[in-house]
């Protein structure tokens, strides 16, 4: 059985949030507030994105700002995939009203 990641609206919102500033490292709590996703939804998505190597992570160094925190950003492959998926989503959204009018 292949783990086919489901491209749910939650996943797309996480990818969109990470794609806003692709080079910047983001904290988990900040992503949670931005996407309005609870930790129980956000972290399974981040884990699966990391397994697919679409997201990389690192620990913030303790000397920078107190206790270390885990940070995330999209990899190059992740950025490409995110752009493609969000582009597809936008196309589908544009088609929907046209189909409904018919």
């Amino acid at each position: 059985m292949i783990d086919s990641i489901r491209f749910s609206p939650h996943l797309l919102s996480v990818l969109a949030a990470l794609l806003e500033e692709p080079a910047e490292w983001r904290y988990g709590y900040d992503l949670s507030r931005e996407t309005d996703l609870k930790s129980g939804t956000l972290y399974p998505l981040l884990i699966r994105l990391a397994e697919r190597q679409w997201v990389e992570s690192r620990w913030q160094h303790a000397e920078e700002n107190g206790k270390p925190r885990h940070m995330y950003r999209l990899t190059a492959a992740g950025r490409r995939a995110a752009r493609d998926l969000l582009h597809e989503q936008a196309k589908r959204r544009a088609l929907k009203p046209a189909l409904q009018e018919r």
Partner: protein
Amino acid sequence: MPFSFFSEHISAAAWRALEHAAPEELKPWADAMHAELDAIEAPSARLRWTCGCMWALAKTIARQRVMKLGNERPWPVTLIAIYFSGFCCELVAVLGSQLIGHKIHASWSEAAFPVAFCFMLALLPGVIAAGLWLLDNAARLMGIFFALAHGLLNWAWMNQPSVGYRTITLLRIAADILTLLLLCHPAVRRAFQQQRIELRLGRASHT
């Protein structure tokens, strides 16, 4: 006592439990989620974050276990193995109820062999289930034969005059046909092909 006192204690207990229960490969993620607590001020939000993280880890562990199951054997094989196991349990339970309910009136010297034989037959689906779980091709062939025999028996039973339980019998025949089709499916057959064994010769030891 304020809510924050309880919520902090509950959170701390939950994180200790998570550290203990999380598998090795997920411990870094558990640490990452825990580290975010310092950025959350409100006690209720910290407790919600903690509960969410426990749910996240439970979901991930369950998903990884299901994936592992699927990687090792196709899901139809898992389903059929569970079906055969259930069938075995049902047959053993029926036999057991006959013995416990004193429904066998013959003497033990006369009944011992038939009872033992019936138990062996009742265990047959369980043995097939175990073989399917281990991806043994002989078990797959036995499963096909068993499903065929069971389906034909049920068909003969249904064609008896004034027989009950027709719906259940039809469902069982349908289950047997489905089992046959799934066990004969090319993707399932491939999973039962024997793995090549690679032999590697080590260095000879010097005495």
